[in-house]
């Protein structure tokens, strides 16, 4: 896992947690499509959020999952959390 969370990472985890709907092309430009347009309801996002947390060893605030309605919003929320953790680690103890 690199330092930044990418759309490819998200796509892999969405597929693992919630599969893909018929007729939805996840290989297209999905960054600004709404999750519900992509066939993912709130539980699918929640489920994917848990996998992100487990894989990256982070804890996402509830709002990151309930208020991110597009892949871009969720990716930004994850990266914000990653860089904050990075900053905390870099800071002298």
């Amino acid at each position: 896992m690199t330092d930044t969370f990418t759309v490819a990472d998200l796509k892999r985890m969405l597929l693992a947690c919630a599969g893909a709907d018929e007729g939805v092309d996840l290989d297209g430009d999905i960054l600004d499509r709404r999750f519900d347009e992509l066939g993912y309801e709130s539980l699918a996002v929640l489920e994917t959020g848990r996998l992100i947390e487990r894989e990256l060893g982070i804890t996402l605030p509830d709002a990151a999952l309930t208020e991110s309605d597009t892949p871009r919003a969720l990716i930004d929320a994850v990266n914000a959390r990653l860089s904050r953790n990075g900053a905390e680690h870099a800071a002298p103890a």
Partner: protein
Amino acid sequence: MVVTGIGVAAPNGLGVREFWSATRGGRSGIGRITRFDPARYPARLAGEIRGFEADDHLPSRLLPQTDRMTRLALVAADWALADAGIRPRDLPGFGMGVVTASSSGGFEFGQGELRKLWALGPGHVSAYQSFAWFYAVNTGQISIRNGMKGPSGVLVGDQAGGLDAVMQARRQIRKGTRMMLCGAVDASLCPWGWVAQLSSRRLSTSDDPTRAYLPFDRDARGHVPGEGGAILVLEAAEDARGRCARSYGELAGYGSTFDPKPDSGREPGLHRAIELALADAGVRPDEIDVVFADAAAIPESDSVEAEAIGAVFGARGVPVTAPKTMTGRLYSGAGPLDLAAALLAIAEGLIPPTVHVAAAPEYELDIVSAPRPADLRAALVLARGHGGFNSAVVVRAPRSEPDPKGDR
């Protein structure tokens, strides 16, 4: 009120054609459990559905959120719609509803999540556990997949619930819903589901598939459980005629009762359920050509059923069959599957057999032990649920002429 589509997932046949081919020929789907090792359990036989690959039939989107019973139900619903020649997107969403029955919910899914909870911790439990186990989930998933927003619900009454669901759908058609999907699929052949079933103390502990489930036999010793069921498409007769749909037959009458308190000395409710169903259909006992029995294979319960049938039809007064001897008892799936079998029997003019059973003479029942050709106009389907539920449904051959009274 007519059935225009049937979807079947049964241990002796996946799909209507395979199921009927096996059932009319007396081919059983009962065997030793293969999906987990049953060696340490007191009961080891079941009617398992073989060769069902969910991802051949369903989008990957549905797989992480569905128990096996829901996958089977979704596919059976797809098949029923295709059989009826109905594309849901062509009908208004609020004109289509779904009523299913459920007896146990999604045990296998739940077992997997419990395992994750204890082995890995709460962060690993699927968010889909919130509904995947739930009794109402088959109705919900079928309605979402097909855009069916009309009156929907779920009934829980063990075997009887399967008939109750179909007749609840009939009620919705009468109130004006254009089309209903109804029926039930149950499946809990996993260790957790198995111990739950064992707690009923009604499971046969025999290891011989030909001797394990013997309703109305002196060697009756409990039942073999199975998985599966059937989903039916229901329409008002005039609507089905209007689109030139093939009708399998009519749901003509329904009766449902609850048993009195044990040891009350009052008569069990099955007899009255039969009489209510005949009265609702407006048929006399001698107009019923075959009875599909509940067939508990517990001596006291067999005796109650034999007495109820005898009281209405007389000694050996009607052919009685239990094709569930080839599938095991499917809980809520059993009633809808028997309705399907009854309609297919009427269509072919052949009563499917009750396999392996040597009927005890004291029951005075005409048990159909080999496939029996017969001119069938009407059939009675019985189902009882653990705890006192009794339901009876009369199905009738399709009419060739429109009903002058206007049948809804």
